[in-house]
């Protein structure tokens, strides 16, 4: 078990893949704490539109970021079927709101490419792009996603 993961860790990544509309994005599985159904959030004043608010995660207050809005495509209109992926960024926990979690992917580190120049918001928010079974998966840079959340910031 440990051997396998050690070998895997050397050259491959495991990703949790989720979708926003037609797009697929991924985050490293080790950063994911849990996946929850959307159940509303308390809006936070004076924050940018992609901050959907805060939720109670077993006694801790966790902010929720709307990934669609973060990519500039307007706010998600969430339903009970939408999903919040709770992840750790540094020593903080954050949730990101996505349409659905699709898969767990194992990709080789060698297959990760830089984000092509052009779309500035993509280059800003993605660490790289990897092709998996003819699907293009954008690797989310969480630190970038959660930055600049306050209106005045």
């Amino acid at each position: 078990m440990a051997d396998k993961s050690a070998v895997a860790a050397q050259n491959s990544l495991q990703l949790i893949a989720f979708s926003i509309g037609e797009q697929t994005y991924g985050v490293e599985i080790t950063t994911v704490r849990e996946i929850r159904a959307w159940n509303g959030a308390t809006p936070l004043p004076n924050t940018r539109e992609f901050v959907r608010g805060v939720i109670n995660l077993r006694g801790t207050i966790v902010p929720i970021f709307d990934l669609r809005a973060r990519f500039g495509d307007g706010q998600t209109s969430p339903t009970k079927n939408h999903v919040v992926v709770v992840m750790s960024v540094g020593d903080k926990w954050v949730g990101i709101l996505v349409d659905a979690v699709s898969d767990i992917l194992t990709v080789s580190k060698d297959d990760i490419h830089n984000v092509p120049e052009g779309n500035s918001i993509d280059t800003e928010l993605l660490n790289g792009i990897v092709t998996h079974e003819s699907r293009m998966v954008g690797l989310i840079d969480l630190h970038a996603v959660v930055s600049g959340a306050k209106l005045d910031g």
Partner: protein
Amino acid sequence: MSDLDDFKATYFDECSELLTEMEEQFAAIEAGERDADRLNAVFRAIHSVKGGAGAFGFSALVGFAHAYETLLDYVRDGRVEMTDDVVTLCIRANDIVADYVKAAQTGEALPADYGQEEKERFDALARGERADDDEGGEPMEEFDLEFVPVMVNIGGGEDAPDDAGFDLGDFGGVADELANSNDDLAEDAFDAPPLEAVPGQWEIHFTPHTALYARANDPLLLFRELAVLGEMQVRPVLTAMPSLAEFEPFAVYCSWEITLISESLTEAMIREVFEFVEGDCDIAVAQVGAAGAPEASAGVASATAKPAIEAEPDTSDLLALADDEVSDLLDFNLDTDVVAPPVAAAKAEVAVATPHADAIIKPAEDDTFEEAPGLSFAELAASIVPSPVAKPKPVVAAAPPKPAAPAASSDGEDHGSKASVGVQSIRVDLDKVDRVVNMVGELVITQSMLTQQMDETLRARYTELVRGLEVLAQTTRGLQDSVMAIRAQPVKSVFSRMPRLVRELATKTGKKIKLETIGENTEIDKTIIEQLSDPLTHMIRNSADHGLESVEKRLAIGKSDTGTIRLSAEQAGGNILIIVEDDGAGINRERVLQVARDKGIVAPDVNPTDEQIDQLIFAPGFSTASEVSDLSGRGVGMDVVLSNIKKIGGSVHVRSSTGKGTRMTLRLPLTLAVLDVMLVKVGVSPYVVPLSSIVETIQCSRASFERVPSGGQVLQVRGEYVQVIDLAKRFDLQNETESDNRFVVLCEAEGSAKVALIVDDIIGQQQVVIKSLEENFERVDGIAGGTILGDGNVALIVDVQGLKTTIVHKNAA
């Protein structure tokens, strides 16, 4: 070595208590209460600090504390008079001891001669010179301690190696300070001339027991004290030394013979040196030539005294110490109190077994440890502190037998003395208490959730259940209060650090400053206390630097030459108010506003009130170093104060009156965990407003609003005009409530200014547990934090003070 770390932590805890006590006692002594009890309390405190320091090998601290203790002892005896100069010197000495303790704690080194000047003055005083005499006598360090080396035959035939010579100079620490002890060693002890019998010559036989070392006493320090009395020779007596095979690393085999020569010497003076180790050693004192004088033996462990150890010394017993035990021993870093029995030089390191260490390694075959099972080693070391640990048997190491001072201070009156020893207490790890606090917090939430579930129909049907819930509510309340009381501590522990700060500031600024402290027994949560030190330091520094005027200026405007800073604490409802007040010049509002406008903190078309201008000194980025010089300097670090205080859920307010002074008020929550709030709705979102800041609530239809020229609204309440903040607008939330059905929540922000918050609905009162937003997000303006409601949803806590201040800071957009 986590055990040792624990002991150390306990020791440092105790040190800070002891230092606080010393500071307090001297504050009283300075005020003229010069009674023996106070002196004894200080004396005991410094002795305890020294004892623990000895156990952990903080040699510099031991050295200084010892000199200080000696002086205090002389003062107690009345040999040195407690003049104002001496009091000042002692207060300074307390500061130095505090620095040494801090250095020991943080591991940073102080300059080698730190406190040297004071040490020399102690010595000068002890030798009967006046305190104000700058030319102190020789410092104790430079006494000519003459060690006579002794050869130990370890079976290597006639020519034993030199380094097997017993050489006290090897024992580092204090011994190193005796700069000459190594160099002056006579080459050959056997040729030491016999001492002539001189009148005033005394012979002392000193045989320490294991307990002496266990209590962190050091013969070397005793000898040093003896050396002050006259010309001295010390000779070790090693006749008790067993063969290496029988050698017990923790036993004491070395005793000493001391010859002391001085015209004015009396037996009492000699005995007094050993006062603290009485009972832990055998002492024989006799005047040479007097009847029953001991034979001055050469004190040489000659080859005849013991069977010679075989050429191949059997060190297996020594080496049988498990490796880690050895390293533990060496970890000890005990460089002062090691008096190593001479063992084969190659193994000397291992043999440097400190008697104290056996408290950790194994229970010694020694009464002290037998009788006090479970006693921590730190307590043994500092055993005369009435330390709050349940002891099977109090171990009092060295209670001075002379003054009838009980081991705990007998003065029960409330003038800052420790509680009497009758109070049983335990030390509990704060984490454990925190766990209980959190559980109780969750319990409170659950209880209020249950209460919320009971609607009228249920209440009517299940009266028993309702009664049960009421009892539960009461019990939960009581439980919460009790838990909070456990964490509460008097603010004294922070306040007591301030006199020193003020002394230093007075010296630095050349001003005359008097510090008054009031209400230092006010209790407040420990975590809050820990956060208080920095802000208070900043505020007091600010008052001293910029608030108070120079002596000349004060005299010129008809004030007394001494400026006063008053530091007070009081409980006001659910809050603690901590007030720093000075009688200085006040805030220069024109300059403050000018700078704020220049920096864009205040929009050019906004005209803040005087009160709002005063608050500007806390605005982030208001003042930077370059502006300090051309401003009155207010504002340096004050934004730090504000952010620190906000972090613990408090607020800061400043009021200044030109020419009369400035008053800064910290309003702090009693506890960090729980808050009484009013639950309101803004739009569809639940918000909570701290009950402590609410004055009253009014239905909007009954409130009288007025328009002001700038387009805003004000509310008229009992002849006062109050600024109105519509929370829905402010928080950018949809609201669909008819304006007449909305409510005004009139809040009193810090100080006197009120503010009217408009909310859509009022739901009720409850207690909530405060949760931080910053833990996973960041600070949000106008929001003081969050809380989890009974239904599991998050409600945000309105930061009333923050809402008000951002009005001024926000550019009129």
